[in-house]
């Protein structure tokens, strides 16, 4: 690239800036592809629903239909054994909401008239708080829930106690 209207240093500043940005971009997309940590994409095979529930679809595999409405999540408590892979589908009955799991790369806009999707594996036991992160009216600040990821033995005990 020869630009005779700028000097050598300016041309270098340009090349270095461009190079820096390209390196960053390749790194970000590279990690997204290699590690499989992607952003939500366009979902066309799942219609909006009006009932939230957790459905087991295989060993340690769950489908979480998560429904948001003013001002609660359904379900707002999810109990799963450690190592579970959860496919989350989410939509809203009324206004726009958000769904974000603390400490996990799950951050979904929950929008009426659309279904959003994420897949996530819970490898460590613990309580994962999830919150609504889009303003949805005066109850917004109390809209949250929890995903309890239990060690195998505790999960079996919990299942018996709850007659499942």
């Amino acid at each position, binding site marked *: 690239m020869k630009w005779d209207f700028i000097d050598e240093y*300016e041309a270098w500043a340009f090349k270095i800036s461009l190079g820096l940005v390209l390196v960053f971009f390749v790194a970000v997309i590279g990690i997204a592809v290699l590690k499989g940590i992607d952003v939500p994409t366009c979902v066309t095979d799942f219609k909006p629903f009006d009932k939230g529930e957790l459905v087991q679809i295989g060993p340690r595999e769950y489908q979480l239909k998560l429904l948001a409405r003013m001002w609660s999540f359904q379900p707002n408590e999810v109990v799963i054994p450690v190592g579970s892979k959860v496919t989350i589908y989410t939509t809203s009955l009324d206004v*726009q909401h958000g769904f974000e*799991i*603390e400490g996990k790369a799950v951050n979904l806009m929950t929008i009426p008239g659309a279904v959003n999707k994420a897949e996530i594996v819970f490898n460590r036991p613990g309580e994962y708080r999830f919150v609504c992160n*889009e303003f*949805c009216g005066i109850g917004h*600040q109390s809209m949250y829930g929890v995903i309890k990821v239990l060690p195998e033995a505790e999960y079996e005990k919990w299942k018996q106690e709850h007659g499942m």
Partner: protein
Amino acid sequence: MKIEKYLRNITFWHMMIGILSLATGVTFGLFQVLARAGIYKYGSFTYGTKIYYQGLTLHGVLNAIVFTTFFIVGFLYIVTEVSLKRKLNRGLVHLSFWTMVVGTLLAAWAILTNKATVLYTFYPPLQAHPAFYIGATLLIVGSWIAILNTVITHLKWRNENPGKLTPPPMVAVHATYAVWFLATIGVAVEVLFFLIPWSLGLVKSINPELARTLFWWFGHPLVYFWLLPAYLSWYFLLPRIAGGKLYSEPMARVVFLMFILFSLPVGTHHQFSDPGISSTWKAVQAFLTFMVAVPSLLTAFNLAASLEYAGRVRGGNGLFGWIKKLPWGDYRFAGMIGPMIVFIFGGISGIVNASYNVNQVVHNTSWIPGHFHLTVGTASAMTFLTLSYILMEKLFGKRPWSKKLATWHAYLWVVGVLIFSWGMMQLGRAGIPRRTHLGLSPYMNLEEKILMGISAVGGVLMFTSFLIYFINFLATVFKKPDVANVEEVDLEFTDAYHRENENLPRYLDNFTIWIAIAVFLLIVTYGPIFYDVFRSTYAVPNAFSPFNPLNLIK
């Protein structure tokens, strides 16, 4: 350039309406940090929460839309007349001003009566009073009239000055307005074709995802509308204030033209978490968002070189010795170098936001307000406040009532905003949402409450700094002029170390080419995005008040 009295006065009122809006917005900002930290309660639970979100709507709309638009339009009028040495159309200046005023009053009425507590993104199906949407439209239309006026003036100047290059500050004006015009088309379509008919009850359904996509077509380029006038000041005023020259004029021009190209097809990086848009096109817009970082990196180079030059002219030696020689005690320097330094952190946190999957960690968390108080909240807002002093001096011969206070307000703000944003960003990383009355949230743990308290300390410092500015500015407005009967206005644009010369390729002075490429990029990137939205999302028969979970549409 002799500037007519009417333009000086109306520029003053553009500035004043902006600053009074900002004062109102900032006051609510103080209550917000205190309420979030649980220090201040607004009375009863329901009343308190209503007023928290109403205040948040005011804070966003007044600071980010009303203050910026009025201030920028007024400031750019003066830059246009001074750099082209040619008069604007007086009738259009008045028409634009009053359209903007009527729009602002309508929207302000709706917000103040709590009929438009929908925050400044006004996402449907939360529904505001039609006056809010109509008011916002008029504010935008008013600014379009100002653009028309500027373009006409420039075309006339071209006819009278064949073969002459557009003066560099005018390139910045064009970049600002090109970005604003193309951006506002998105929000205008959203408001005129969807929100207004729906809020009037003429149609029952609305597609929230489509509305979001149109909003963010506007919502991100908007930030360059805020930023470019600040860049204009940093490029063309600051080097001279520092005692030097702009390092490279042609590079400045390239930077502003790059902003025309890459400011627009980037809005989807606010929608990485959205359904209805395929991840491929999210990645494409992520790439273009990275590209828009390039002109800012070039700016960092060019301005650092300009300041180094100034420092060396002032007798600074060694690798870093020149830094000490810069006029840190000059209120104009302090009021621009402060925002520039803060903007480094703003830019870096912005790269984080743009980083595709990394955005999943920060989307809609407190990280985001942490980020944009460093950018629009400091880089733009504080530069504008510094410009308000400069304009009072240049237009009315009134130097600041106290130059010392003007300097200290700048540094105090820098300290305040860095503390505030640090706290907010840590909270964001912990997963604490933004735009939330956290003082009443049941899910905050102790560590998060402490961080909230730290950011409240920053917020109090920011408010104190603004108060110092506000008192000082009002005292400046009401004092007797230091120079009587100002007619000639010289903004003292900087000279350049590398000037533009006849080597400059002519396509760098042809804005049509750059705007056409920008439109092409918009169509190519947004076409598939709208296709995705149409094939995977639906309109819903919903309309909700933020205070009631019952659908307003039966």
